[in-house]
């Protein structure tokens, strides 16, 4: 497996091998799905829409609906304006959503379709909305697309009226529905009234009811997005995925925001809870205190097997940094951190983390790919690999225990219903890491070392 990878590094100038990211539109589609009764719309070739739906469905194991402008050669020459007009008409006629969230593709961006103008000139039924975001696939990554969609939703819809609604706005970042549920649960335990954008819980992790719903119960309502302008303040989790949205709300409606790291692990979850406490001025309920204590207890219990173990983490920048910090809390060493998304901030923040916990010899790279990670591992191995499904080839080739956390995870089930954030998420992640290491111990143990008690 993967015998193609050469151990010695060589100059790489033109080729991306085994990418650790994907393109903007799929991120925008995911964000749009987090809006209630929203039909995401892909303004480009048929292939784009089909691929993005497929990619998301493989991860969530749930149906994903989105429409396409279905570009042909004609549209590429004369522009996709008529495609979009027809599309919007058809979508409202056939699928009747409350809002259509259009995102562009590299094709429509390159031919220069001006979506703001097109949408302004459109006949939109009363009480319905059409918004758009620009997501050229040759810039950034799927995280950028997600971030752009959230920002655009706010730019189109949010308004500031004269009265505050007393709520906190939450921008969860590019996380699973399970994570969003956990963020909401913590906020509710703290007694905070919130609006979370986007909210894919109840959309992509909905129950089996025996009936197919084109628009499941979940998702942030359009009115809620409009009223975001009246929020007291907002919290954005993850710089890469959420800062743009929070910034847009601040610029448009003057809502102050706090930029926090992804709340994975003890410290960052605590940071979130403190921010909530500052908002409510109430005491933190014992339940959360207990959960924190439980997590710390667990980390101590497992440390004989985890302490000083080296791990490689790859995936989306905010998630990788969050997991890295948790690993450091556990006493593990995040030896290699890699993301496919471009951005020097990732490397800077990683270096700050390494310095804060006093570890040396660790490497972080943005805009990298899994081929490079494989080469690093070949040169100097690790005890554990953490990331999305595409790491399984490296795990198999180098015989390393592999924990699936991040995006996309397309060869396992259940993960999207479960959190990585919060104390509960930390417990889950600690369990997965510890189990992977202990499974490996059991697998490789000689008969006499095959222990009953570990």
């Amino acid at each position, binding site marked *: 497996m*993967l015998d193609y990878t050469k151990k010695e590094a060589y100059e790489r100038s033109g080729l991306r091998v085994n990418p650790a990211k994907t393109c903007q539109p799929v991120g925008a589609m995911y964000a749009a799905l987090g809006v209630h009764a929203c039909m995401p719309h892909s303004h480009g070739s048929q292939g784009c829409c089909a691929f993005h739906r497929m990619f998301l469905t493989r991860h969530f194991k749930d149906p994903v609906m989105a429409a396409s402008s279905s570009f042909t050669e004609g549209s590429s020459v004369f522009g996709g304006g008529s495609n979009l007009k027809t599309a919007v008409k058809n979508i409202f006629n056939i699928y009747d959503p409350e809002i259509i969230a259009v995102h562009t593709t590299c094709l429509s961006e390159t031919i220069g379709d001006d979506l703001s103008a097109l949408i302004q000139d459109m006949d939109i039924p009363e009480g319905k909305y059409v918004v758009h975001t620009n997501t050229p696939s040759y810039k950034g990554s799927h995280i950028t697309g997600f971030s752009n969609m959230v920002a655009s939703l706010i730019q189109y819809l949010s308004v500031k009226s004269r009265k505050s609604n007393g709520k906190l706005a939450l921008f969860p970042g590019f996380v699973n529905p399970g994570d969003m549920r956990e963020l909401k649960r913590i906020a509710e335990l703290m007694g905070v009234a919130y609006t979370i954008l986007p909210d894919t819980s109840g959309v992509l992790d909905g129950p089996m009811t025996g009936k197919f719903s084109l628009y499941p119960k979940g998702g942030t309502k359009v009115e809620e997005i409009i009223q975001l302008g009246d929020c007291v303040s907002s919290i954005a989790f993850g710089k890469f995925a959420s800062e743009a949205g929070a910034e847009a709300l601040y610029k448009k409606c003057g809502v102050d925001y706090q930029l926090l790291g992804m709340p994975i692990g003890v410290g960052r979850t605590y940071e979130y809870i403190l921010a909530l406490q500052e908002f409510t001025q109430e005491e933190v309920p014992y339940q959360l205190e207990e959960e924190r204590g439980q997590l710390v207890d667990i980390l101590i219990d497992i440390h004989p097997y985890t302490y000083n173990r080296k791990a490689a983490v790859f995936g989306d920048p905010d998630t990788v940094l969050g997991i890295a910090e948790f690993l450091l809390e556990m006493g593990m060493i995040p030896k290699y951190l890699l993301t496919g998304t471009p951005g020097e901030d990732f490397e800077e923040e990683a270096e700050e983390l390494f310095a804060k916990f006093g570890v040396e010899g660790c490497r972080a790279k943005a805009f990298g790919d899994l081929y490079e990670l494989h080469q690093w591992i070949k040169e100097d191995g690790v005890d554990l690999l953490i990331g999305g499904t595409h790491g399984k080839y490296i795990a198999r080739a180098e015989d390393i225990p592999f924990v699936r956390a991040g995006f996309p995870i397309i060869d396992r089930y259940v993960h999207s219903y479960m959190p990585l954030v919060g104390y509960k998420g930390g417990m889950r992640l600690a369990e997965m890491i510890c189990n992977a290491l202990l499974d490996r111990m059991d697998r490789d143990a000689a008969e006499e070392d095959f222990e009953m008690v570990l």
Partner: protein
Amino acid sequence: MSELALLDERKDFIRQKKDGGCSGAFRCEANSLSGAVSQRACVYCGARVVLNPITDAYHIVHGPIGCASYTWDIRGSLSSGREIYRNSFSTDLKEEDVIFGGEKKLEAAIKEIADNYHPRLIFVYATCIVGVIGDDIEAVCKKMSKEYGIRVIPVRSPGFSGNKAVGYKMACNALMELWSRMNADDVKRSIACRPDIIHIGTPVSYIQIYSKLRKNKSWVIKNLLECVDIAKNKGIDVTVGFEDASRADIGFILSLAKELKKAEVDIIRIADTVGVLTPSRTKELIKTLVSYTDMGIELHIHNDLGMAVANSLIGAIAGAKFIDCTLFGIGERTGNCNLYDFVHAADVIFDLVMNKKQIKQIEKELYDMFKHIIQ
């Protein structure tokens, strides 16, 4: 079972099982309506799916990262051994490449693979954006092919140029290019054996070009010259064989010969593959060739009509410098020109370095060696 609510435009695409039956023609191969929640894929997808199981090829996707990441490991293959196709290769075009053109990046990508991995074959897939910004991937592929002496094949598959079925077609076209130029591969393998001379054979009669090869004359000329070029570039001498020349159009033979002379090929071999020549026709053919081409002529005659020796002799008299003979006249069907008989007849006309007595001796020795098998 309730009636399905169907769009009028879509009625022909759907067949519903009713009253125990489900018959009638299906419509397919159309594009989706704008705004439909459709699962239809694009041209690139179709091409990728067809070619992915060529497991020891490098499949490079020329475009932004999405196209490659969504088709990573898109189709498996039960072939064993090579796993290269399970990696995902992309030129990951960025904004600068879209503005200023991605050809340089594609070249760099191909170089990276060629320098480090010495591949046999590279496919380069065009995606939507390549179609719009106008990267000339054919030119890049050709250039890289020549520079590295490997096959780099462009697949013309920008996503918007049709639907998935068109993609299958584009992939098949690319495959055709691969197979039909297998001669080039043979030439390269020959080069690896370090010969002094490489002989390249090609059919020249219309009946063989059109029905056996399913090609046309211009393809033959182009392909032949390319193969000659490959060998010549390595400093190896080339001779070219015209198969089925006895049934070929003399004008075509002469024009081919002319092109070959320009390519510094000095010897052409005329084959009477199906054995239909007569002495007078042979004389006419060879005389024409010698006077019009000023090249060395080699003659390869079969004995279907019992005239192999006669035709060979007349050909030699008419100016052919090289005559193909075999011991015992062994060869396909009724055999080739018998060496003993030819020497017997030609001895009085030409100055030969061997006489028929020596030939007889060799025949005897050969016979003694193999008689227990022949018996």
